[in-house]
């Protein structure tokens, strides 16, 4: 019937079964790593898409929330001895808290479009510089390492990569289920994206819903950053707050189709393995060349299918629907 009705929980259940069953097939650790990265970027892009895709507020600074999540996890674990599984959940709240710093002034005083986007870039860059500068606290540009600890879910420390795969898959599925159930909230955000004046005319409190989108989006992005540090056990300000990290979420979401909940997953399914492969094969010899190929791909996508990969399916379906009456 309508494009947003199709994003139903009934698609998530069979997909969950497949995703959880995948590690049962014996595979090289590298393939497992690739699967973890695919799910992690699918998760991060889905989180970005709440603000960028649904509410249409183009953030190019989501690394800020990713980085805060990662560093908050480090501090909570190493300084306060809080179990990592708890930190994983709490770290997102720090990201949300930080996001108010940019969201309130922008949304309350009507910083729209390009100006909002520029503000988000600046926000992440400032955080990066602050974390590089405060060396005594943050470890500076060298970054931080998580110490080795006891294996297990409480410490989010595993010898086998499969366990990390299960964690990130669960996080992504949880996010998808939450978003599938939050239909009305999503509809309000879409209304705001499509036309703010119209959204206001039908009684939607624009400022409030934009802020909520930002808080929720940054929360889940922060949790993603937290997962990142528990998986890699290391992070530095360049990865944590870098423009590359922000762009990656945007590219995947736009490539897959930012108007749909599934777009980020499809985008990551295509782009993450290509990106990793190019990085390994070309990255060493021709530094940065994988980014060029990435960029060209993105230009092609935006030129020929502005609704992303997922959009094509929608177009075919809507044509069929109209013909079929």
């Amino acid at each position, binding site marked *: 019937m309508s494009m947003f009705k199709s994003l139903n929980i009934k698609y998530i259940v069979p997909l969950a079964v497949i995703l959880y069953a995948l590690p049962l097939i014996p595979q090289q650790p590298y393939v497992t790593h690739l699967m973890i990265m695919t799910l992690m970027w699918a998760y991060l892009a889905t989180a970005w898409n709440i603000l960028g895709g649904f509410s249409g507020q183009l953030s190019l600074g989501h690394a800020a929330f990713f980085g805060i999540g990662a560093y908050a996890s480090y501090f909570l674990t190493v300084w306060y001895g809080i179990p990592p599984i708890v930190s994983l959940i709490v770290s997102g709240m720090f990201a949300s808290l930080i996001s108010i710093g940019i969201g309130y002034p922008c949304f309350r005083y009507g910083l729209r479009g390009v100006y909002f986007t520029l503000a988000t870039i600046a926000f992440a860059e400032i955080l990066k510089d602050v974390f590089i500068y405060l060396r005594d606290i943050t470890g500076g540009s060298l970054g931080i390492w998580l110490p080795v600890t006891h294996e297990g879910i409480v410490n989010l420390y595993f010898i086998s990569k499969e366990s990390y795969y299960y964690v990130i898959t669960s996080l992504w599925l949880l996010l998808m289920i939450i978003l599938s159930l939050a239909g009305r909230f999503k*509809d309000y955000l879409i209304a705001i994206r*499509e036309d703010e004046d119209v959204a206001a*005319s039908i009684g939607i409190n624009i400022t409030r819903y934009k802020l909520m989108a930002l808080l929720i989006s940054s929360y889940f992005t922060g949790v993603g950053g937290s997962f990142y540090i528990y998986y890699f056990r290391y992070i530095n300000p360049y990865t944590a707050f870098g423009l590359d990290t922000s762009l990656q979420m945007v590219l995947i979401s736009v490539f897959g189709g930012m108007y749909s909940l599934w777009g980020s997953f499809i985008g990551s399914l295509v782009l993450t393995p290509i990106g990793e492969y190019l990085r390994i094969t070309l990255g060493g010899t021709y530094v940065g060349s994988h980014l060029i190929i990435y960029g060209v791909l993105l230009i092609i996508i935006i030129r020929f299918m502005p609704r992303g990969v997922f959009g094509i399916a929608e177009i075919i379906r809507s044509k069929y629907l109209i013909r079929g009456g």
Partner: protein
Amino acid sequence: MLLSIQKVSKAFGGLWALRNVDLDVEEGEVLGLIGPNGAGKTTLFNCITGYYRPTSGKIVFQSVDIVGLPPYKISRLGIARTFQLTKGFNNLTVFDNIRIASLVSGAALKDVWEILRLVGLEEKKDVYVGSLTLIERKKLELARALTIRPKLLLLDEVMSGLKPSEADEILKVISDINKKGVTVIIVEHVMRTIMRICKRVAVLDYGVKIAEGSPEEVMRDERVIKAYLGEEFVA
């Protein structure tokens, strides 16, 4: 009295788009608001619906002063509006446009269908709004305004750019809406359409209300003729 506009002025820099406008709207009526281009009709609508804040004056709706309230709150009080340059959720279907618009007021799915039927967009429900024709977009404006179950409906040139037969179609819808007890203010600069549906008309010119009364009275008014046709046509 449903709405009372009291000495409302709106200045943009040094330009007065509205100057001391007084206007009362009775419950259940269809009031026409006319005037040449740039007379301040849309500005007045924007002031009533909260998109602009009047420079001075009061706007009282059901004995509440609504000046300073944001658009979404005014909408929730029961004042709906359409946009002169039609707007909509272009990447969504007609059905989704009206469904989402209905969410805030908590209208049921059957209300959505009823509204689509009332404005005659039932058969276009699966069409993306970006590919609608002008008359269909005007109908969508009407439909969306209806979703908030308005007590007062502000229509900003819903018939401009339409063929006479299409305008008649819209006129019929408006009169159906009015019969259901919705008070309507119509902005138009086409006299013909206004004469057919409004018992009372107010005329704006350069931000000042220059006349008010029945369409016949207003049409005979010297200042109105001057505003529309120029000095030399005044008998």
